[in-house]
């Protein structure tokens, strides 16, 4: 119990960061499940959502700004898919992935241009940014809210995927792209929907994440993005519960390592975990086994 008591602040921070990674990881895992594309621009979308909030609050009250940035992020995600990925639908997968890297490069440079390279401070959201004491550890409300909000959203998403028509279409497309097209599923609208859901969750993740770590800079999205992707691979890419569990494990481990004084290695640990899982069980915890046929 001593270990838990000493490390409680880190475990709490870990659960919270884990929830935020989970929200980003779902975007990765859904897009990968359907397009077989590592959407490298997803982490940068998350950063842009943070940046939009910084500028939005200077023009409008907070309760308008939050829905506004969520809508804008969703539109951005939708637009990126239409402009950068849709024309390459018949191209080799490598081209699409390079297009994603290009979008990421563009978003980062655009952010650099808009901010002038300065770190912007995320607006203070009342209630979420208040401090609270949990079991003797002082933290922000957002730390406690995040895991519940994440789990709530994931349950909603799972219901959407299992019980609605569009959800069924998504499952079909992720199983077999060509056949589902022959069965009359409108591939483009399914893919757009995937990007809309992914961007929506990334926008909410960015609100939670940046309330915790208030510095928004152009490269702020790169690391959380990569870690969320690792989480998606860890849980088995294409699997939503897998991504969420992977994200919580990575968030908690990372913060415990920070607590032990190994901050330099907190990022490296994530990747070490990734490499171990890739070598031991390449499909991840909950991934489906793919068999290559000649």
């Amino acid at each position, binding site marked *: 119990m001593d270990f838990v008591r000493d490390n409680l602040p880190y475990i709490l921070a870990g659960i919270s960061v884990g929830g935020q990674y989970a929200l980003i990881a779902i975007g990765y895992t859904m897009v990968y499940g359907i397009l077989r594309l590592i959407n490298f621009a997803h982490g940068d979308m998350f950063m842009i959502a943070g940046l939009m909030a910084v500028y939005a609050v200077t023009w409008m009250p907070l309760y308008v700004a939050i829905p506004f940035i969520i809508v804008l992020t969703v539109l951005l995600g939708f637009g990126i898919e239409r402009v950068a990925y849709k024309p390459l639908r018949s191209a080799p997968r490598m081209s699409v992935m390079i*297009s994603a890297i290009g979008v990421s*490069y563009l978003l980062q440079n655009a952010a650099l241009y808009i901010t002038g390279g300065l770190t912007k401070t995320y607006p203070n959201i009342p209630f979420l940014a208040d401090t609270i004491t949990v079991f003797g550890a002082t933290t922000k409300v957002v730390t406690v809210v995040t895991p519940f909000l994440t789990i709530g959203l994931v349950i909603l998403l799972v219901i959407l995927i299992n019980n609605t028509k569009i959800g069924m279409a998504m499952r079909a497309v992720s199983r077999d792209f060509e056949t589902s097209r022959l069965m009359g599923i409108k591939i483009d609208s399914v893919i757009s929907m995937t990007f809309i859901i992914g961007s929506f969750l990334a926008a909410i993740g960015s609100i939670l994440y940046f309330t915790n770590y208030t510095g928004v800079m152009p490269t702020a999205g790169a690391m959380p993005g990569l870690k969320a992707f690792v989480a998606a691979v860890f849980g088995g890419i294409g699997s939503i519960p897998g991504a969420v569990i992977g994200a919580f494990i990575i968030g908690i481990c990372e913060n415990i390592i920070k607590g032990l004084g190994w901050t*330099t290695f907190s990022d*490296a640990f994530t*990747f070490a975990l990734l*490499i171990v899982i*890739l070598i031991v069980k390449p499909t991840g915890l909950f991934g489906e086994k793919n068999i290559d046929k000649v």
Partner: protein
Amino acid sequence: MSKQKKWLLSCIAIAAFLAIVYVLEATIPKSSQWSMLFTVLEKGSIYALVAVSMNLVNGFTGLFSLGQAGFMLIGAYAYAIFTIPVEQRAAVYQYFDGGLVQFTLPVIVSILIAGLVAAAFAFLIGLPVLRLKSDYLAIATLGFAEIIRAIFQWNTLGPITNGSNLLRKFYTYDSALYPIIACGICIAIIVLLINSSYGRAFKAIREDEIAAEAMGINLFKHKQMSFVISSFFAGVGGALLAMFQTTIQASAFKAAMTYEFLLIVVIGGMGSVTGSVIASYLFIACREWWLRFLDAETYIGDFKVPLLRAGFRNVVFAVIIMIIVLFYRKGIMGTNEFSWDALIRWFKNLPKNIKSIPGRIKNIPNKFKRKSKKEAQINE
């Protein structure tokens, strides 16, 4: 044209190029804005070497590896650690009592060691990683590059790597010819390798792994070989980059750096060495030199040109890259290589092509119409 004649032409062209660089370097003062030309030549050559080494793995062997920045980091550090003069070590390693290594090696030896250390790391990393496929391989190599970066910033290794502090005061070159010739030799070696029977085996693996295996190619051996050799040259490239920058720090070798090389390889054409070289020079020239005017606030009379301020250059540059990625998917050269015959043919056809430009412009709307019709059919 006969083979001998082509060789002669190539030798003359290379000698002429080096002579021009030598003369320009002697005549252009360091302060003039034309001195950017040398930055482009030096950095462009180094980038060309790393891009070609990346092309060897990604374009010729078909392995999607994203570890190049990590191997460059190893090379840069290995080079710097062995060439800082002994009497300067106390100043550089000021937090670590002058560091552990208390000798210096000749420059050429250090560069080779830089490559060899990177290759050794690649060998160890390759053992588990090369059994993975496509995206998983990409993510695993990216992960290893990040781990390498963390290890080099680790304070406990400070006596060797200077922790997260700068390494500086190591030997640097004093003429632009140095990196050009060094990179030229390295690229020539890679080209020889690609044209050998090993190179053909790499290409066979790229086209179809199962078929290649059935033809008796040892998959793992050849993948490992391509990966290790590519890392060797990335390490050498890292050492040269350290010389170019005069200081190095582990935090600069991020995944973003690997993405730059990947973009260069794609712009030049996957599987074309000349493409990678041309793209590297264009990439560096655009980013560092030609687009620089976009960063300066400009006035035409009293009118302030909108949007122009620091950072706009990179936005425009990124947009150009996106256009190339979306519309010129095969890159500048596709999978073709430079040849004198093709160049001569191009010049011969030039008058005809210029004449046909007005006709082709007229045709553009038709092309779109036809295309959209075709798409409509497919969608139906």
